[in-house]
């Protein structure tokens, strides 16, 4: 592939021949121009035979099979096709395929175009192209495994979330006691309220405030936390915030027991009439004291900032993001392919047209839009249509990246076809109907591609 990249006049037709179904094309032209029909047939026969066995027969048999039920004995007419359009699961697959077909080819072609145009300008173009093209050498199966790891939820394992959390944490770092909360039930003197923890009853100055908290994860409890002390009655507003759970059990709820630890570093607010009257921070034993607060009755509140969970990134493999996530993997694989094709086309653009435009005072953007893109459009179209066909039959990436629980949300037609035919249901009738449906979807794009090639040949 590298030589081709280097070639100034890489023949785009040669590369583009690959994904097309050219063979059906060539013989027919031969027949028209060939010397004698007998010779033509003799030459045609091997190809026709192979195509017959591996292309025509399976298609015909699939169409035939799609008219029968699961066992293959009962004729159901178009019943299987009706099932496709009445089953909500299958409709999801059609919707997903639609998203794929609209998004993936555009993104791949655009990225390919950007890479191709930019690499024209840089010194290490070949090295850059090689790297972008490299994913093509990886099988889709392996690419799926790679991206399954990339999208892993835990930032310790998944690259995507590791990047997100790193970026996020540079702007706002989290600390405190995520997931800690007051104990449920009526006995607890404090209650959760919209992410904050507040005392249920207003407290009076001079009367110690107890704020028991449970569910503190062992790894967030600071090492300097000291055993909590029951607050003694004193002047002003003071109290204790502590982890109200005796290791090994046995402690009394709502009481400061001997082995229970205070929660240092908690921000505590005293609120009066909806306004924050004072702020304090707990000490190592969890005690706090508001300085210079006028006597009266207050609600003591632990603001939400104490319980902010650290940012965990996005759940890429969840039901909402799964299809975009898999499309991301697809783009990673195919962008290089698009870039190589477009770069080849770019090399074939007559330089004088570009230069003429530049001399006439066109900006780079104008050159790109008015000259490069129109001249490239045949290649762009080939890439685009090839990608549409590729996305329609996408299977392996979805199968591998989506965890079992979101497979229904990520499902696409090709995968559904395989599942109903061989996985579980063993309904090859419905599976054949799905494959025929897929064929019908691909067909217009195939014909379009073939036509283009034919026009290009003449």
């Amino acid at each position: 592939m590298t030589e081709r990249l280097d070639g100034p006049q890489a023949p785009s037709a040669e590369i583009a021949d690959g994904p097309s179904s050219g063979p059906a094309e060539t013989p027919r032209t031969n027949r028209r121009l060939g010397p004698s029909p007998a010779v033509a047939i003799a030459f045609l026969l091997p190809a026709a035979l192979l195509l017959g066995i591996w292309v025509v027969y399976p298609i015909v048999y699939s169409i035939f099979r799609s008219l029968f039920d699961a066992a293959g004995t009962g004729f159901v007419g178009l019943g299987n096709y009706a099932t496709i359009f009445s089953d909500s699961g299958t409709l999801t697959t059609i919707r997903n395929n639609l998203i794929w077909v609209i998004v993936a080819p555009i993104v791949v072609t655009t990225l390919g175009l950007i890479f191709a145009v930019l690499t024209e300008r840089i010194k290490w173009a070949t090295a850059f192209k090689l790297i972008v093209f490299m994913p093509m050498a990886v099988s889709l199966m392996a690419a799926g495994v790679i991206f399954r790891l990339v999208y892993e939820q835990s930032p310790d394992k998944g690259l995507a979330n590791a990047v997100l959390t790193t970026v996020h944490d540079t702007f706002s770092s989290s600390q405190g006691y995520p997931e800690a909360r007051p104990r449920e039930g009526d006995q607890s003197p404090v209650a959760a309220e919209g992410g904050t923890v507040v005392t249920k009853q207003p407290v009076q100055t001079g009367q110690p405030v107890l704020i028991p908290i449970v569910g503190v994860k062992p790894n967030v409890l600071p090492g300097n936390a000291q055993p909590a002390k029951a607050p003694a009655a004193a002047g002003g507003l003071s109290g204790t915030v502590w982890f109200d759970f005796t290791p090994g059990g046995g402690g009394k709820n709502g009481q400061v027991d001997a082995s229970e630890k205070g929660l240092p570093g908690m921000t505590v607010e005293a609120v009066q009439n909806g306004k924050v009257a004072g702020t304090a921070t707990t000490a190592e034993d969890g005690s706090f004291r508001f300085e210079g607060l006028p006597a009266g009755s207050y609600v003591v509140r632990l603001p939400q900032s104490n319980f902010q969970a650290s940012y965990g990134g996005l759940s890429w493999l969840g039901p909402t993001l799964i299809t975009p996530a898999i499309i991301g993997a697809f783009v990673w694989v195919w962008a290089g392919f698009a870039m190589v094709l477009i770069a080849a086309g770019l090399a074939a653009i007559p330089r004088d047209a570009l230069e003429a435009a530049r001399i006439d005072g066109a900006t780079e953007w104008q050159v790109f839009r008015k000259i490069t893109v129109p001249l490239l459009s045949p290649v762009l179209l080939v890439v685009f249509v090839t990608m549409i066909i590729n996305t329609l039959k996408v299977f392996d990436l979805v199968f591998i990246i989506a965890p079992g629980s979101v497979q229904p949300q990520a499902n696409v037609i090709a995968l559904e076809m395989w599942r109903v035919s061989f996985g579980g249901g063993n309904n090859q009738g419905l599976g054949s109907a799905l494959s025929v449906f897929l064929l019908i979807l691909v067909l217009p794009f195939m014909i379009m591609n073939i036509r283009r090639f034919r026009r290009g040949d003449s």
Partner: protein
Amino acid sequence: MRKARAAVILAGLAVAVAACGNAPTTTTPTESGSASAPAAGAKTLQGVKLEVAAKWTGAEQKNFEQVLKAFTEKTGAEVTYASTGEDTGAYLGPRIQGKNPPDVAILPQPGLVQQYADQSALKPLSDDVIKEIDTNYTPYWKELGSADGKVYGVLIKAAHKSLVWYRGQAYDDAGVQPATTWDELVKNAQTIADSGTAPFSLCAASGWTLTDLFENVYLSTAGAENYDKLSKHEIPWTDPTVTTALQKIQQLVGKKEFLLDGSSGALQTDYPTCVSKVYGNKKAAMVVEGDFVAVEAAQSGAKVGEEAKYFPFPKAGDTAPVVLGGDVAVAMKDSPGAMALLQFLASKEGGEIWAKLPGYLSPNKNVSPDNYPDELTKQLGQTIVSAGDAVRYDMSDLAPSAFGGTDGKGEWKALQDFLRNPSDIKGAQTALEAEAKKAWKK
């Protein structure tokens, strides 16, 4: 799907027959304990090549391969192992269609025996193997491997699915004791959550773990009779008994702090990752699954019996549930090698080799529980062999596999959706019923 229905009915009958016939037969003295048949002579299968397909991976696969090695040493036959992955039907289907099946396949669901027998993909067992089965198994297990009156399969591995595994340290820290009733379990979960550890690590990405949980709760709350009816879809999934069971499950999964990483995290966690989250990362206290957790727990560095302990699934209703699973070995090619291997697997000799490895329970009544590597497995083995009338086979494994055994479909999907939105019991039931109708109709 007439076949599938027949399979379910038959499998259901098998359970019923076994339930009735169990007690007398266990006491019937079988002609002396001479179980280890003389096999087919020494090294008679030299040069024979066999392929065995099963769904086991990881440690379970390694253990099984040791058993195969013993077979090779005994007979000289060369055995290769092929892993079918989670979806055994998807692996075997194309190979059967292509007329290139493995010699021996190990099916995770008895329902598949009937399904493949109908496709004429199975070979009836030879008289030698059947004799071996009669010597070593109660009729209950023999029926599970039969279809249309012919014996096709031998149940070589049983799984006890009514257990709750817990991490000793987490329980000590929270100061709780293993629960015997559902309410106690919920109360303990609250206490453990208060102590700062997530009580449950669910393996919800593997749908079968959710069906197991449901089956235990349902068997306990609705009773064995309803369990049989629901297994055959004789009562709809919209039945009030299902509502009760889902309400119980809701008590566990409805609270964010009860699940490690919440429900969305649980839905991305497959089995056995959930086990390593309990015993490896020590992030959660309990995992609700069968005896086979032992293998993965040991893999995560926890000693079974010390750090990795379990208690019987607590009573959610009137009775403590006992749900069993099991793997059936069948012959897909009628070769002497395949039959010899099945005979070996059904024999006392083969069973005892396997029994010495962790994570294995034998349904073979002549395999003495003394062979098991630890005390806990010994007790489990005892309960399976002497299990009474209340035992039921895993419901989802008796259902058509489109309902009870396919990723992203049927019961698996419906329960995963329920976990995603635990407040919607009614919606879950409607979805279950719709999926069940689809699977049973055809």
